[in-house]
């Protein structure tokens, strides 16, 4: 970092790229939170693909390569795409998934028709629209970053101004409706924000992979927190980190497309979050599960020892660890658990490999059994099987 920073400060291209990627991560991270929570992760996929014909049409109509013009076309097409998805699901029995897939692929196909059509035009041999397919961070100009900045500011403003409304819309749309909020309008605003965020990132990530920037940072952030505010901040942070890392690496490495690089970085963040996030993470879960299983095992062993002690009518009689092997525990596991129980004071080692339960252990296993024969009888049948085999061996 110490090496990279002076470069960043000096190099105009790198500074532009970093700034653009930061804006991209910021806007899609924030907006993605809402899309993911509303189970609309793939709306972004449809809208980013749908943006392609908008870019091509904007170029065909204006003959301008100005980013603002092309992105305006992208916004219009993305919007139209989301409108059509909505109309299809509302007026036909075609479900959301089919509607999204349909709009995504048909719009993208039409975009390709227009792109190939443009390429064959004599006056537009190098329209440079290809960069919108997979993104090209190195082609970002300061003007482009200005346009992206405006989009990002619009998204952030909407989130700040409508914070409470969006929160309600995400978690309890019915309640929002009852309160008299204009849910339809809010949904339209949210959709527009997703379109805006996608368009902000198009030049850097490209239409094919832009949807990942909407889903991944939010999905990663979700693992670390249960609070909306924190999730938005984390998601934005992940987006910014992934965007900047990916964009810088790809613009410093020849023949490394920006979009896929950013997506791989953000996928890595998701993987780490899924595995290691406290409370929800898989590793965390696994450790907790393991601890719980150990506890159940120790509890079971203590019960066996208690049953044996009751059977012999004394706490002095030691039992070999082999007696206690049940339900597939290995000898090592049994001894390990016995040592754990010993250090907790529930079990004592009478002689080499002879174990007996202590009074403390008895009190823990049978807290309410003093003079109570009923519960003793109830506990007995289940515990009698290992006891029987133990009898034969000892």
């Amino acid at each position, binding site marked *: 970092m110490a090496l990279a920073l002076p470069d960043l400060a000096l190099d105009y291209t790198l500074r532009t790229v970093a700034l653009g990627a930061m804006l991209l991560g910021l806007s899609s991270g924030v907006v993605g939170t809402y899309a993911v929570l509303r189970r609309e*992760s793939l709306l972004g996929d449809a809208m980013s693909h749908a943006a392609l014909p908008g870019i091509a049409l904007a170029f065909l109509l204006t003959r301008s390569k100005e980013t603002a013009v092309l992105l305006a076309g992208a916004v219009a097409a993305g919007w139209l795409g989301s409108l059509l998805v909505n109309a299809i699901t509302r007026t036909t029995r*075609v479900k959301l*998934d089919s509607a999204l897939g*349909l709009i995504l692929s048909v719009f993208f196909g039409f975009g390709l028709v227009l792109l190939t059509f443009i390429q064959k035009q004599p006056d537009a041999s190098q329209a440079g629209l290809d960069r919108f397919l997979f993104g090209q961070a190195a082609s970002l100009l300061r003007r482009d970053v200005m346009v992206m900045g405006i989009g990002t500011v619009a998204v952030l403003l909407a989130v700040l101004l409508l914070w409470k409304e969006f929160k309600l819309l995400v978690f309890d749309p019915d309640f929002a409706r009852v309160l008299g909020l204009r849910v339809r309008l809010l949904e339209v605003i949210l959709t527009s924000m997703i379109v805006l965020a996608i368009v902000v990132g198009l030049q850097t990530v490209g239409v094919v992979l832009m949807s990942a920037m909407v889903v991944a940072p*939010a999905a990663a952030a*979700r693992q670390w927190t249960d609070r909306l505010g924190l999730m938005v901040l984390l998601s934005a942070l992940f987006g910014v980190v992934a965007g900047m890392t990916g964009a810088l690496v790809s613009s410093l490495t020849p023949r490394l497309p920006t979009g896929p690089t950013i997506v791989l970085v953000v996928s890595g963040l998701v993987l780490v979050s899924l595995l290691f996030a406290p409370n929800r993470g898989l590793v965390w879960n696994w450790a907790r599960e393991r601890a719980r299983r150990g506890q159940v095992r120790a509890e079971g062993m203590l019960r066996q020892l208690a049953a044996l002690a009751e059977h012999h009518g004394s706490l002095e009689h030691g039992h070999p660890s082999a007696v206690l092997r049940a339900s597939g525990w290995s000898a090592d596991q049994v001894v390990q658990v016995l040592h754990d129980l010993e250090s907790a004071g529930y079990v004592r080692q009478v002689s080499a490999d002879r174990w007996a339960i202590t009074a403390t252990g008895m009190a823990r296993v049978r807290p309410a059994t003093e003079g109570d024969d009923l519960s003793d009888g109830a506990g007995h049948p289940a515990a009698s099987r290992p006891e029987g085999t133990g009898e034969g061996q000892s």
Partner: protein
Amino acid sequence: MTAPQIEIQLIAAIVAAACALPGAFLVLRRMALISDAISHAMLLGIVVGFFLTEDLNSPLLILGATLTGLLTALLVELLNRTGLVREDAAIGLVFPALFSIGVILISRYAGSVHLDTDVVLLGELAFAPFDRVVVTGWDIGPKGLYAGGVILLINAALIALFYKELKLATFDPGLAAALGFSPAAIHYGLMGVTSLTAVGAFDSVGAILTVALFIAPAAAAYLLTDDLARMLFLSVGLGVAAALSGYWLAFLLDASIAGSMATMAGVIFGLAWCFAPERGLLAGQRRRVRQRWEFAQRMLAIHLLNHERQPGAEPELQVEHLWQELRWDREFATRVVSLAEGRGLVTRQNGRLELTDRGRLLAQESLLA
């Protein structure tokens, strides 16, 4: 038409038909987006397979890519089952990652292999006729035709063989599971077929546009019929129509064939959406209009029934009076009366309306209902 033109159209039509068959089940089982994920992620399998075999038509490559497709479906399922992300997000996480690895591999080694992003993404149907199958010196046609044909046959045979099981598992998964058809077997079977088809189709239409051929014809057919068998045939027919019309659109514009096919598939869906006999927008609109007139005629009949035998109700029975009483404008009232007259619900004498027996019956029925 030249021979290559005919061959291109044949390949396009066969690929479209092969896609439409599993597509119908994808649409019905709400798995359309998994096909999107599969066809994107397959890119990785194709690239890796290509690096290993250096031959785009090698059976090993096709096997590898198909397995990648299955792996995608499996990963989505696994991720979904952790409970940490929902299914939509799981799809959105898995395929971009796999696709990205594929794209990066292609761009890094673009110089050394004959495989570039455009071909994989967009396919190049126009070159398909140049890739021939030659058996003992005899040219027996383009490879794409055979690859597509084999996949179409496999799909058709599997669907014919497991038609009952697929039908049951699609429309009543609970009953199917209770009867002992493993939902997992059917799910992954369909995913396998989808992957294989996508591998076969990617060559000609590219990774992204296979989705159009999977979904658009099937979704259009879904709007046209309620019968599964008919839907399958319709999907195939519409897919072929999209392929052929797409080819000619591309010819006209001198543009991407695959893109044009996807566009035409969309146009066909749009037509079905608007004009489907029962479920189309137009049919719905006409039904609403018809219901409006029908409702008005019933209102008229009920109005007349209410006032029929009342003393002093004479003015109520005048046509002139209706537009005040029922708050209809004059034009609408006249239209309703003449419609009702035409149906034999009322008779008119000197501007005075009288219910016929039929009209009375209708009014009474309406009130009872």
